[in-house]
């Protein structure tokens, strides 16, 4: 294998991969934002069983889950311009290609996030919404003031896993010529005829990012636990059995129903590199 693996090349490739990291991060960031907003909307439509819209949302989610993301990317890349042109007469041929990548990954993330959000919302005890009704809160107030703040914490471990998976899945952007980390690795592999070294560099970046993201998400999760800002630390010890899981495996998602949903999504969904 030594003929195929050259350490010095890893050193040369690595900075070039780091240079395009912002592209990957932007895709992840924007896809995550779209995913959260649209995903919340879809989750809301489905939980409240809004007629027609909830069925459309269900088909959308099923389609996205059921088809390779490459196909979704093509549909957005070729389909959206035609759609906008023929319906609204908007010409978007001048758009930067990366916009299509944002949209495609945003829609994809939204479908997956909506399931996470749905599961997290459903994991919030009924008593919480009961209390809202009993206090005379409107539906909007119920969602904004009680459900969302609590849901975020439950969903956080899952968001973490999905985001890490998304980091890798962005590779398909290169298929339409957007150069992200995996795309750059592919290009370097093609240019040097040494693919392993380039991907190894990408692996180093992703593993590092995964570690960082895991930490960040864990921190957010802790911050959202509504126990962390204890005025007097001593008092936290009063009911430790409630606060601290007794077993050591605290890394597991706090609510299995929601947490699990996503674990599986971690499976790389790259189809057709």
């Amino acid at each position: 294998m030594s003929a195929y693996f050259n350490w010095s090349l890893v050193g040369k490739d690595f900075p070039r991969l780091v240079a395009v990291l912002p592209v990957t991060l932007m895709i992840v960031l924007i896809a995550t934002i779209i995913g959260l907003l649209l995903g919340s909307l879809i989750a809301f439509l489905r939980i409240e069983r809004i007629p027609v819209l909830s069925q459309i949302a269900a088909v959308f989610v099923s389609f996205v889950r059921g088809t390779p993301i490459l196909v979704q990317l093509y549909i957005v890349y070729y389909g959206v311009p035609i759609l906008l042109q023929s319906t609204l007469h908007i010409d978007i041929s001048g758009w930067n290609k990366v916009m299509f990548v944002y949209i495609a990954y945003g829609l994809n993330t939204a479908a997956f996030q909506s399931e996470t959000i749905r599961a997290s919302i459903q994991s919030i005890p009924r008593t919480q919404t009961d209390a809202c009704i009993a206090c005379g809160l409107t539906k909007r107030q119920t969602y904004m003031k009680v459900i969302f703040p609590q849901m975020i914490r439950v969903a956080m471990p899952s968001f973490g896993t999905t985001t890490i998976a998304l980091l890798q899945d962005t590779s398909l952007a290169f298929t339409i010529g957007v150069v992200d980390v995996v795309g750059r690795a592919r290009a370097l592999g093609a240019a040097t005829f040494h693919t392993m070294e380039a991907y190894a560099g990408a692996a180093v970046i992703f593993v590092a990012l995964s570690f960082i993201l895991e930490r960040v998400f864990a921190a957010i999760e802790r911050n959202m636990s509504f126990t962390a800002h204890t005025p007097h630390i001593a008092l936290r010890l009063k009911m430790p059995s409630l606060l601290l899981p007794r077993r050591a495996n605290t890394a597991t998602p706090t609510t299995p129903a929601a947490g699990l949903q996503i674990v599986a999504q971690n499976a790389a969904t790259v189809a057709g590199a």
Partner: protein
Amino acid sequence: MMKIRGIRKAFGKQHVLNGVDMDVDDGEVVVILGSSGSGKTTFLRCLNFLEKADAGHIDLDDSHIDVKSSSKKDVLDYQRKTAMVFQNYALFNNKTALENIAMPMIATGKADKAQADRRAEELIDKVGLSERKDFYPSQLSGGQQQRIGIARALALDPKVTLFDEPTSALDPELVGQVLGLLRDIANAGATMILVTHEMKFAYEIADKVVFMDKGVVLEQGTPQDIFEHPKHQRTREFLSRFTSQLENA
């Protein structure tokens, strides 16, 4: 004055409430007794529209609600005249003790932020938890949570407050605390409907005791009537443990 008529509720084929009637005068404390599964919780939930009853009317002051046909707005208005204290506390987990009391006041437009905070501080003081006001529910003991739950209900200044077994999840010392607080509130003239298994407390505090069985009101009357001269065999059975305790001790 609250007038409840013909409340019915079925879950699927199971008829849980079969036409419950009840009158509650202003400032009256009504205690509902009944064995497990008799429909007490369901009844309270229907009164607060947490569960939509299948049929029935509720008149409360100027609100006249037909549970089946009244508009969303009328129901919301009516809801804002009632408040509920839950068996399992049901505080908002993402809000501190103080916020739990203040937020609903603001959300329902009963007070602005400043007023709400002031009133919340007052109430939290009243239930003896001033020094815990910035704690989250998970950092409070059961008895403390329940007292915050009661303060939250009181803050909304409801015409009627509903209590579903407010002490059943507490240890005996905490039970004492919470019952004491309820007694104070009752003495202050609040209108309350209360489900409890604390017979002794019911005996002391109630203006009227209602015994429910299989989704109907089997009998009602003053505590003396019900505890000392129950008319129905079922009521006698149910109360036997308590009354024997009354005699034994």
